[in-house]
């Protein structure tokens, strides 16, 4: 019961303030406090991300029908290209598969930048999306003045919070004033000065109580201000010795999802996934990623699969695999890829939208499988949220009654599932798209022998995608 008393003087100050002609001044005050910081200049994203894929192109000079000189320029370019072919050495990035995180890691800083800038692949392991940990770290120590997106967000949040606090204060004061006004009216009516005075003080304490309740949850505007000013100023940076600068080691790596990694390796040939200094072939990666998209994953999955891979390699090279040194090669746990493996159909959808020019990124934040960006997250918000639904409409899946029942159970999604997703998408201004992937009959037979080396093109072409847009329809809005 101590605190109302101790705060009493402070409160009386506030009430005194309120006695003035202050509705207008209050509003002005809020306006002045409202943060109006100018945002730092954005980097030139159009230039940074001018390549939509990590592949070089050699465009011809423009052809302008009414400018004959342009033809000459094209001719020169063509001839020079045919005589001295341009250096089309493909830059291949190196990566390795991490069994712990079920993702593919890229550690070379140049590769990380390139994969992010050219097609928005991967996620920084210590950042929100774009790998900016080092920049953040440098900035924290006052070396670079550039702001990272994480910092911008943090600052914006603080600003918004302060704005809300300020707004709440103004509202509170308006109510308090209204109450005082009403009380003074009743007091005037009843002509009882003493009574009204008591009343005011009672309300004052109750109000301070309210303040006390809010305080621990939300820091006062002053403390928010302090947080804002926390990043070190330039003077601090100047005092910093050079050794510290060099001492920061980039501890961040780029994490590629399995679909991204496979797209880069199989489709673009821009990524090599290595194990023990050897580059793994595409069909092995496909088997590996598929095996790691099931649940639960056996402990020895990766080892067994790799053993089988080595066995197959020796076999193909004509070395007798029954020799002594193969005795340790255990691969009994390797199973075939089911046609409805999560990785397989997710990759189908990933590849489909990438091949149409969309930037596809994970949609786990919004409760969907993928988000589709036009040009990339640096340019615009994602417009579509993609949810993948495997569908078993191939005749194979309805041949026996047991199969029918099993597929029906796998296909089943109730309406509440759809409403949940749809509501979330509407809230974050995305359009929900269900992508149905038609699952073919099983194709991975004899996976320990001849067909270990998958024919990727054939497999990918046996699936089929179909897109449907789902959106809420409100009768009240369409009548007009």
């Amino acid at each position, binding site marked *: 019961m101590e605190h109302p008393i101790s705060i009493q003087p402070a409160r009386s100050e506030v009430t005194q303030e309120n006695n003035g002609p202050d509705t207008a001044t209050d509003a002005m005050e809020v306006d002045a406090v409202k943060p109006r910081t100018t945002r730092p200049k954005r980097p030139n994203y159009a230039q940074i991300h001018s390549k939509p894929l990590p592949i070089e192109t050699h465009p011809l000079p423009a052809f302008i029908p009414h400018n004959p000189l342009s033809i000459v320029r094209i001719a020169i370019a063509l001839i020079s*290209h045919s005589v001295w072919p341009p250096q089309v050495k493909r830059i291949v990035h190196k990566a390795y598969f991490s069994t712990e995180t079920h993702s593919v890691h890229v550690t070379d800083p140049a590769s990380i930048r390139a994969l992010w800038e050219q097609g928005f692949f991967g996620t920084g392991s210590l950042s929100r999306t774009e790998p900016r940990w080092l920049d953040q770290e440098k900035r924290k120590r006052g070396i670079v003045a550039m702001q990272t997106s994480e910092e911008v967000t943090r600052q914006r949040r603080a600003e918004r919070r302060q704005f809300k606090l300020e707004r709440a204060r103004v509202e509170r004061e308006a109510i308090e004033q209204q109450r005082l006004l009403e009380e003074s009216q009743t007091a005037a009516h009843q002509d009882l000065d003493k009574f009204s005075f008591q009343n005011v003080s009672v309300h004052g304490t109750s109000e301070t109580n309210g303040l006390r309740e809010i305080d621990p949850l939300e820091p006062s505007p002053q403390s928010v201000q302090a947080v804002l000013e926390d990043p070190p100023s330039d003077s601090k940076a100047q005092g910093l010795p050079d050794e510290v600068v060099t001492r920061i080691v980039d501890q961040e790596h780029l994490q590629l999802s399995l679909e991204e990694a496979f797209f880069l390796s199989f489709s673009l040939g821009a990524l090599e996934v290595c194990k023990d200094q050897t580059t793994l072939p595409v069909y092995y990666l496909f088997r590996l990623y598929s095996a790691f998209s099931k649940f639960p994953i056996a402990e020895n999955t990766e080892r067994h699969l790799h053993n089988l891979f080595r066995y197959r390699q020796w076999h193909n090279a004509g070395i007798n695999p029954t020799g002594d040194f193969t005795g340790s090669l255990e691969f009994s746990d390797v199973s075939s890829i089911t046609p409805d493996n999560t990785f397989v159909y997710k990759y189908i959808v990933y590849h489909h939208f990438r091949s149409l020019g969309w930037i596809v990124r994970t949609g786990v934040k919004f409760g969907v499988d993928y988000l589709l960006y036009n040009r990339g997250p640096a340019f615009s918000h994602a417009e579509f949220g993609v949810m993948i639904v495997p569908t078993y409409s191939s005749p194979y899946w309805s041949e026996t009654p047991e199969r029918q029942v099993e597929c029906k159970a796998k296909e089943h999604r109730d309406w509440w599932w759809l409403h949940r997703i749809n509501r979330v998408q509407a809230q974050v201004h995305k359009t929900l798209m269900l992508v149905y992937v038609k699952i073919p009959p099983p194709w991975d037979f004899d996976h320990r022998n001849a067909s270990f080396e998958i024919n990727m093109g054939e497999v990918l072409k046996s699936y089929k995608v179909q897109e449907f847009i789902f959106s809420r329809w409100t009768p009240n809005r369409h009548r007009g």
Partner: protein
Amino acid sequence: MADEDEELSHLRGPEPADIDLSDETQDFLFLDKLSSDANGALSLPKRGTKDFESHETQLQLDTLEASRQAMHGVLSWTRVHTEKNRILAMYHPESNMAYVDKVKTQHFLTMGRAKGGKEWLLPEEVLFLLERGSLDCRWPPKPSEEEKDSDYKFTMEDGAPMSLQGAYAAFIGFEAGVGGKLTLEMYNVYAGLKRSGYNVYRTGSWDDDRAALQLPATGSKKGGNAKPGYWTRFFAEIWRRISSVGVNTQVPTENLRFGPLVKPGLYRSYADIYRLLQIIPTQDRGAPPTFMLESDPSNPFRVHFDVYKTGGSFKKSNRGPPDFRIAVINARESSVPTAAQLNDLLVTTPHDPPKATDNLYKKLKHGQRNVVLAVVDNGVPSYIRVAEAAFSEEKLYERTGRAPRGKGGGRGRGRGRGRGR
């Protein structure tokens, strides 16, 4: 981690289409304003801020009281049934419909159909009018033996009045025809849309197991994608040939097998690369629509109602194409449709391509064919519009770059032009 959505809510308000007034508790003050403004100029009042807790001021209490008064004012309105507008209908057990001898009131502008000198009402129409209190439906009189012999001619007045319970029992689910039974869900949707001011009719006769295929109208393709001019095409072809000198334009089988699809080499533009990547089969939109499943009367996905917006010179005899098509679904007895079910539902709707002038997102969202699903969960309908999107026809890579001419001949030269000037 919720940065992106937070950012959005900061920048944009909710889209008007997402605000559903029925989601909120009504503030009846607005009714008061509607009725008080008798000059004919009705306008919906703006919604103010909402108070979530009491703050003990007289002002707040007064506002609340005023709103309450407005509600009572509306509810205490005396409703009058005039003799002039009383409609008598007779139940017809054979067809499970009801008929009216004499057409009165404006309801018959949008309901009922004339046949044999009488106006026939479908079950949902009878129920709707009964619920509104605008119709008096009678059971057909059962004359006793003596009465049969006498020359007395029975009129509608002699039939016993049908109670509301009786009407629901008689009209819901007792119709002939396999696919044509009115369920409570369908009536719910019908009544809801009627009350919202739409004109609602059954789609087709509901007698057949499934509706007919809707083939795209011939000639509709021409309007969809306008061909570029002759010269543009000529230059485009020349350009294509010149720029493909020494460039890979096809994926060799060996690369298709083991990758990479885009083998190292010379490429003129990213569009060429994207074209190489396109290997995943999609729905063939050139092919005529077909059913994927066997005709099955138990298939819940079927277009039930044609919905028309009101306004203009609407005639029930000459309705024209509907504005929306509604399929009613019981949420407890069905699940989200499979691709085959969706396909079979959508092929019974007409081909409705987006306008060629619309922007990319709008086009994709509009889709090629569309239907509105009314998912009824224990009497609460929620409407979902489903559209078949043509993603593979709107190639994003042909739009990106700073190509000054978006379509047709200028393929691949957008990037080149951007340099050096």
